[in-house]
């Protein structure tokens, strides 16, 4: 039997998914760009958004590729690629694959060789992740018209609340970097020296870059301050992991 995990057919399926995602993104990009011009946003501002978002995306996207690679042993490279290109999420995809394989008495550490097991994993990962695609078309308009009418009533209150919602989201990840635990058998995924130092480094770099931008009126540089601070934080993690003794660098107080 041909290699079903990495054969021509599954590559064709993957290309279809990738093409769909890109066409949909282009559709929304073009529509919003046109509307941006109608409401008076400058091309310069919108181009800045495109450049900054693209730069911002590079490092997290590489960590997604790492997740694809991590699942390759069990599932081949194409299925994880499909899953992480559409709806996928680095946190859930591995868990879903693990749960699906468990139902057949296997784990992601083993290579899946039976085509029936493989297609079962496909179904489980697909059905497990599709709920948002049902909820969003039904409820999004209602949710947003509620938010919209609240915003129209009291703009200052709505601004504070929007900021509070962002901060609430950010706070969850800050808290996790300070006090969350990782998986027992994985080194470096829980709160510890590296996560706190990375967090502080990217905060400090961001504050320095923002101050420099304001002081020297470097308006063009502002969109890059965030991605650059993020990459600086990641670089410091690499340097510390190399420079410090491992039992200090990889100290995780919550496991």
């Amino acid at each position, binding site marked *: 039997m041909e290699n*079903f995990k990495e054969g021509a057919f599954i590559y064709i399926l993957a290309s279809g998914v990738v093409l769909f995602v890109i066409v949909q993104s282009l559709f929304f990009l073009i529509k919003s760009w046109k509307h941006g011009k109608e409401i008076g946003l400058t091309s310069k501002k919108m181009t800045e958004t495109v450049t900054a978002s693209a730069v911002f995306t590079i490092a997290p996207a590489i960590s997604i590729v790492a997740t694809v690679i991590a699942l390759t042993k069990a599932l081949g490279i194409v299925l994880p690629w499909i899953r992480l290109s559409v*709806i996928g999420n680095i946190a859930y995809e591995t868990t879903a694959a693990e749960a699906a394989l468990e139902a057949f008495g296997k784990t992601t550490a083993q290579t899946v060789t039976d085509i029936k097991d493989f297609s*079962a994993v496909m179904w489980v990962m697909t*059905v497990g992740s599709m709920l948002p695609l049902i909820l969003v078309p039904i409820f999004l*308009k209602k949710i947003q018209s509620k938010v919209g009418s609240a915003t129209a009533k009291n703009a200052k209150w709505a601004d504070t609340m929007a900021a509070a919602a962002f901060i609430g989201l950010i706070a*969850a990840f800050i808290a996790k970097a300070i*006090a969350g635990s990782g998986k027992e058998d994985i080194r470096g995924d829980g709160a510890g020296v590296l996560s706190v130092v990375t967090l502080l480094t990217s905060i400090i770099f961001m504050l320095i870059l923002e101050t420099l931008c304001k002081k020297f009126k470097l308006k063009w540089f502002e969109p890059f301050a965030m991605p650059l601070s993020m990459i600086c*934080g990641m670089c410091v*993690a690499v340097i510390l992991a190399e420079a410090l003794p491992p039992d200090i660098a990889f100290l995780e107080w919550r496991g």
Partner: protein
Amino acid sequence: MKSYFDRVHVWGRIWTVSALCVIICVPLLFCIHYNSWPPFSGVIKGILAVIPLYWASAVVEVLSYAPLLGAGGTYLSFVTGNITNLKLPCSIAAMDSAEVRPNTEEGEVITTIAVATSSIVTTVIIALGVLVFRPFLHFVTDDSSVFAPAFQQVLPAIFGAIGASYFMKHWKISFVPIIIGVLVLVFVPTLQIGILILITIVASLVGAQIMYKKGIA
């Protein structure tokens, strides 16, 4: 003529339903092509194991992210995925640097542009990673690689950088959610991030509401 938001919802619904068909086609066509159908009971068992985790967080995600991502951004994000670790921080950063507010037409346009760009770049990078750089990737992504710590710390790096400018601007309302988040984790260190986000967002909204009423925030 319909408003821009109404049109976005029409497009968004059509694209989302199409996306649903596309993702179902993947396992369906695979099984038809190889004429190999998995045992029904096994699939159900697997689905039942995954659903509590996925579906609960799906409801939380739709409710908490939709107001922050804008209409176009939400439709697009939920199809292309990787929202918490990528699309959401990306659109927050874009609104911040373009100085536009969420839930305005300007905010809507900027978030949609940010999410669309991010989706295209992600899809291209994953595809390149898989097709072109696969032989070399293990140098970067292996657990033993010197770069491994960088990718393990992506989330603290992202949210530190985003947090910095928000905390500076709104430091008064920032204490409550961070302290609550840390306290919750002290007692339940393995809490799923999806649930933690819900707790800290609610704590943050309640705290900000009280401070707003008292005229502090």
